[in-house]
């Protein structure tokens, strides 16, 4: 075990820090600390430009292999990139679905043609992606897919009909990947296909879902005989579940340390507020701020363990299994702390009609953390079943 980074890595850290300091200026200055979760609706156009700026600097897809146009960074360097990116207050990435999910999925499972068609747009920061997984009525039950796809021989295209929900940034995206049922008689995780679909077509309708914050970050996406080219199914029809699961595997990893740096920014803001209004002398608040700090530190150590291949027990990766439950619960508590530090002022909006302060927005938005991407309850099931070998929950049709 070793805590420090190599001098080469520290050079890399200096390089990205310098680039950010040089480039996150002028028209991009206003994007600092904006556009994260709960703030996704802010500055979409400017942040699209920023994606392209990043690409020009060679700072998109830093973890992708060089053969596919990535920077081929090591895990350590990806960690450093994410840390410095967040430390500089660089804006929430609009390209993160393409870079973090679509790209790795295509690199692992896509055809050569798909790679050539889609990867360059992602790297260039031109093509934004969103994900079409969840369906209304399915919730945490991801395999419960009703969206249908059939191949129209005449048109030579896949025809997709159905509805997806909780799709971040759908209204800003160029493409969506969609899990749809290719075998109409199939059930659960069998008979699914994984499709790459252009958003700009008349048969796709995007409607924002207004959230607790009064803003729309998530969307419903309606497919009414939407079309998808024959070659834009990843893998074989019927094999979509395996690809979707592989993709979910890409979701954890190096981005956690960047996320933590955002959490640190939020905690710093809370500490500043506490010192400003005297809450920092309240012994109960002191305990809670310390507790938040301790939780964040431990989250970081845990991520370092995850990224180093785990510190214990070989294959099972327990420390990765519990990560979502830990950070989601921690973040929810942080929201409550933010409000309690502000005392009565916590209630007062930035302005009418319903413009929240950043801390209010965080406080309200974190309530979704324990729900999306597997609720806390689902996470606990998974931990108990996979991590501890306890019996699986039963499907009980017709429960009294």
């Amino acid at each position, binding site marked *: 075990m070793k805590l420090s980074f190599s001098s080469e890595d520290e050079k890399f850290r200096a390089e990205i820090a310098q680039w950010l300091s040089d480039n996150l200026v002028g028209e991009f200055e206003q994007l600092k600390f904006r556009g994260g979760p709960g703030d996704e609706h802010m500055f979409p156009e400017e942040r699209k430009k920023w994606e392209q700026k990043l690409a020009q600097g060679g700072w998109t897809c830093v973890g992708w292999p060089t053969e596919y146009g990535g920077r081929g960074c090591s895990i350590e360097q990806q960690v450093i990139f994410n840390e410095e990116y967040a430390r500089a207050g660089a804006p929430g990435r609009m390209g993160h679905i393409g870079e973090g999910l679509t790209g790795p999925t295509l690199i692992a499972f896509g055809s050569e043609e798909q790679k050539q068609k889609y990867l360059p747009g992602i790297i260039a920061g031109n093509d934004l992606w969103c994900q079409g997984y*969840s369906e209304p*009525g*399915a*919730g*945490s*039950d991801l395999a*419960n897919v009703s969206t249908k796809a059939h191949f129209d021989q005449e048109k030579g295209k896949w025809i997709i009909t159905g509805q997806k*929900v*909780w799709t971040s940034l759908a209204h800003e995206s160029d493409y969506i990947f969609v899990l749809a049922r290719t075998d109409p008689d199939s059930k659960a995780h069998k008979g699914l296909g994984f499709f790459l679909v252009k958003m700009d077509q008349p048969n796709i309708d995007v409607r924002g*879902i*207004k*959230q*607790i914050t*009064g803003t729309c970050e998530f969307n419903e996406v309606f497919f009414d005989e939407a079309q998808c080219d024959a070659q834009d199914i990843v893998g074989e029809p019927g094999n979509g579940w395996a690809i979707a699961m592989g993709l979910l595997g890409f979701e954890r990893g190096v981005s956690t340390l960047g996320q933590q740096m955002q959490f640190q920014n939020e905690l710093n803001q809370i500490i500043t507020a506490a010192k400003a*209004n005297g809450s920092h002398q*309240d012994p*109960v608040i002191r305990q809670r701020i310390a507790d938040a700090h301790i939780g964040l530190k431990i989250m970081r150590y845990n991520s370092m363990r995850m990224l180093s291949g785990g510190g214990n027990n070989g294959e099972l990766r327990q420390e990765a299994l519990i990560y979502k439950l830990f950070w989601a619960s921690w973040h*929810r508590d942080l929201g409550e702390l933010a*409000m*309690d530090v*502000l*005392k*009565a*002022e*916590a*209630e*007062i*909006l930035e*302005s*009418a*009609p*319903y413009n*929240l302060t950043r801390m*209010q927005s965080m406080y*309200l*938005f974190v*309530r*979704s953390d*324990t*729900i*999306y991407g597997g*609720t*806390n*309850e689902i996470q*606990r099931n998974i931990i108990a079943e996979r991590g501890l070998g306890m019996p699986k*929950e*039963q*499907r*009980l*049709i017709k*429960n009294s």
Partner: protein
Amino acid sequence: MEFSFTDEQKMIQDTAQSFLAELSTSNAIRSAMNTEQGFDNDTWQKICSQMYWQATHIPEEYGGMGLGYVELAIMLEKMGQHLLCSPFLSTVCFGANALIVAGSEEQKQQYLSQICEYGLTATLAYTSSNGIWDAEAVQAVVKPQGDGYLLSGTYRYVLDGHTADTLIVAARSEKTQGDDGISLFIVEANTSGIKRTWLPTMDQTRKQAEIVFNEVELKATALMGEYQRAWPALKQIIDLATIAIAAEQVGGAQKVLDLSVEYTKERVQFGRSVASFQAVKHQAADMMMRTEVARSAIYYAACVAQEVLSNCVSLSELSEAASVAKAYCSDSYFKNAGDAIQLHGGVGFTWEYDVHLYFKRAKSSEVLLGNSAFHRERVAKLLLD
């Protein structure tokens, strides 16, 4: 000892339930909360003229119904349950209580009668921006001038402060602190020198305002009680209002439980109703436990409040009952509302479903008049110092 509802009280509860179910629908709430005023005039008039609720515990000699604080608590619980947008809490539980506790006979005759008669609205302003809820909250300054007084200062977080017809305000004499030197006044809101500004809040169902007094001249008759010695009365008013808020909180805690049970029973996941999962059942069970004991706390506190208003028990008992109720009900409502979002899953944090309205009300009610940590410390002082 008798700790269950009389038949009359049960009737009041049933009436409140059916009246509010019809009046305070999700649409009505959303329409009222989107206005700066925060309530619908017709609704308020219906409450005042049809139901006469604002007169519930006001003595009969001032046109009230002369009922008790338990009856009031029953209604408040139902208002909390239905998230009623109205100036009821500010007018009755701050305004009328202040008049009952500290008003002179003339003031009672004048103002309580108007509240009963046509729903004159009123509120209490005592908090500055320091985020404190006890005597140190009072930072506005008053001094004698001529026959009357001159008052300057800024109040924040004043419930319905921008719309209330009448203001009851606390101020302190210069160079005083703590419990000393505090006076109470009643004043028309449109008096010259008073500037009132709506403070938009996260919880849209109850409005707050900032009120600035810029050298406002008050007549001698504006004084409530004794000059510079108003803290015991003000404390009692605050304690009474605290119990009122706790009663509302119980109603809210019950409602989010009801919403959650209903939703999880209907919602199917993994081939079974969500309500059939033990983790879901156990969360709901904890919600019910919190709600029921919270309910016991407010019925008790309401009894104590009634006995105080009938001059039967000591004020320290009122303070303790208020803090016990507020500490427990604040935590219970907030936890229940948070759990309700969780049990609703994705739709729980949408604007469309009502859960978030309760979640936000839970927080604003928790903060109002001091959160649970504040009230626990108040209890600790009674026990340990």
